[in-house]
């Protein structure tokens, strides 16, 4: 631009724009929400339309322990990011590790639930509409938990190598948005699958 005369310096100093990391993550969350909405709608639409058993009431048990674990992991990751913001790297690592552990417990619990459903209740994705919608919805969520765990693991390795510093708190914050989203989606999935659908 060839005209410096257009530059009032006061304008430049006050120029603050949103963080691109947060905006990018919110965009991803918007897209993911739309996707989960479609799976949730399919689940609700097919409630009670299965032509053969087993039905949700017969085989589903409410996963209270797993839910408590996943929801508390939102709290622990929040503390982890807060610790990093205050430059407490070791405290960050502890909270971050707790988040990871809670996420792993949740996945293991989902695995146990699936094992029970497949081998004892005889419910697979092709058994009936309940199986179709249940495994795809819960599986899609479990996939997102897995992706989150991969991210958490990378963060943990970096923290153990001593590479996570205070200046990275914004990145951790952006990642935590994703993890919070995975938790919020679980509330929706839980409500639809275990409360409304059962």
């Amino acid at each position, binding site marked *: 631009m060839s005209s410096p005369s257009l530059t009032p310096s006061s304008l430049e100093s006050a120029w603050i724009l949103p963080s691109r990391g947060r905006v990018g993550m919110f965009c991803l969350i918007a897209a993911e929400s739309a996707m989960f909405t*479609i799976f949730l709608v399919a689940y609700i639409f097919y409630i009670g339309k299965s032509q053969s058993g087993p039905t949700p009431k017969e085989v589903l048990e409410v996963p209270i322990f797993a839910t408590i674990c996943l929801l508390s992991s939102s709290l622990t990751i929040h503390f982890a990011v807060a610790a990093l913001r205050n430059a407490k790297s070791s405290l960050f690592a502890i909270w971050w590790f707790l988040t990871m552990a809670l996420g792993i417990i949740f996945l293991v619990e989902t695995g146990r639930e699936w094992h029970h459903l497949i081998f004892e209740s005889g419910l697979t994705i*092709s058994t009936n509409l309940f199986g179709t*919608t249940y495994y795809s919805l819960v599986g899609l969520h479990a996939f997102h938990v897995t992706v989150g765990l991969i991210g958490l693991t990378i963060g943990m390795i970096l923290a153990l190598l001593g590479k996570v510093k205070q200046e990275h708190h914004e990145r951790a914050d952006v990642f935590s948005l994703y993890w919070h989203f995975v938790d919020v989606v679980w509330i929706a999935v839980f409500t639809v699958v275990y409360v409304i659908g059962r």
Partner: protein
Amino acid sequence: MSSDSIALNPALESTRPIGDRLHDWVTTVDHKKLGILYILYALVFLVIGGIEATIMRIQLIVPHNHFVSPQVFNEMFTMHGTTMIFFVAMPIMFGFANYLLPLMIGARDMAFPRLNAWSFWLAAFGGLLLYFSFIGGNGLYGAGGAPDVGWFAYAPLTARVFSIGHSTDFWTLGLLVSGIGSIGTAANIAATVLCLRCPGMTLGKMPLLAWMNLVMAALVLLAISPLTAAQIMLSLDRYLGAHFFDTQAGGSAVIWMHFFWIFGHPEVYVLVIPAFAFASEIIPVFSRKPIFGYPVMVAATVAIGFVSFTVWAHHMFTVGMSSYANSFFTISTMIVGVPTGIKIFNWIGTMWGGKIEFKTPMLFCIGFLFQFLIAGLTGIMLAVAPFDWQLGNSYFVVAHFHYVIVGAILFALFAAFYYWFPKMSGRMYNERLGKWHFWLFLIGFHLTFDFMHIPGLLGMPRRIYTYEPGRGWDIWNLIITVGVFFQAAGILLFVCNLLWSRIKGPVCTSDPWDAWTLEWSTSSPPPEYNFAAIPVVRSRRPLWDIKHPEDPDWKYE
């Protein structure tokens, strides 16, 4: 990227070994190069999709023709539709957004350059997957080929039983992969517009192109994901024996339609809103007036974005819905006419009393305006459920949406090509060839798509590979096909013009149109870093302010 690639001198650039330059293009994360890659890739698919359309039209030129078999005809209309929507229109819009947005908002690149490259290569890979079906669709089954289920792939056509081989899988995977790329690009566009604007460029001072691409990005984020979800369900049905769309096990074929069209209708606006953006940038420059009603334009765009999510089932009137659903979708569809009508009036208001220069980009914009109006009017007709019961799935519908996609979107795209070609290449296109292109394409377009309404009204259904003589359809089909050759000739001139002007065209200045947005303040083509110093703006037309310091815009905004 290697440091020696910051070659500002084109002569110097052309002396580098071809391997090095190719390596630069493949590994680039520069928004301008990725934009051009998107555009070139889309142009290749435009030619391929055009050839598929031509094959269909040759088959239909006379009754009982045997140019292609029914099977090939089915493959042609499926591939034509899928290609044109997903691998021509979307990437070409993304390409222009990529190229123009950072330049227009005074930034040095997109918000996430590597995500940008990743998204492009995913989109490119998706296109290759789709076209690999011609070779690999057979799989080990000895059946299949290119997808033949129509571009909206209604269940149960896509079930394993009815679609043997891998043809539908290539369709599903191609769209799934390119869809993920689209979401990446949309996130990138939104983050770029919201987070990288140069100092002084508040949301109300952004060029309309930035506003409209922001709305387009929001639509992509919310509309493409339902399609991705539906494609995942379809794959589960086909490979793991799930029953989402399996009516035998209690599944629903209609829910696929809902899922598809809840993507499919906003998709129209994903494509047409960037076309509005081109018109909103080009019409003011060639009318020598600022855009009329900027805030209303923004509001209308956002309104279209919202309304577009409430109209999807107007694609399904003929499926049979409750009268409440029919009434709701009729009314919501008609409401779309309000913000789009506002836009048309604003563009006319911009031209009104202006000193209009009829250069090629402006000619295409005027064509766009006129044809978009007609397309909107037939759209209102089809929004009326009883009218749609009569004409749904007929050539009237085909004529209507081609009026939108070719008559409005493609015309605006050609305008954009001619308008920004000097900026992208540093050379001026040939005006005479451009005008020939416009008139040939205009005549061809109207021959094909005006007359396509008539066999539709006479009851000719879409997607039939041939028809009986003596139904009054023959002459119209002949005229429609003749128009195709005019359009093909126009496209040929367009491609020749681009290629010739790229090499031999006269070198142009940084601002050949005497325009007002920031991309014209840097050299043509822009250097890799776009702006030596990040600009500061005070109005919607920063270059006007520079050129007319005695009467700047910011005094009045």
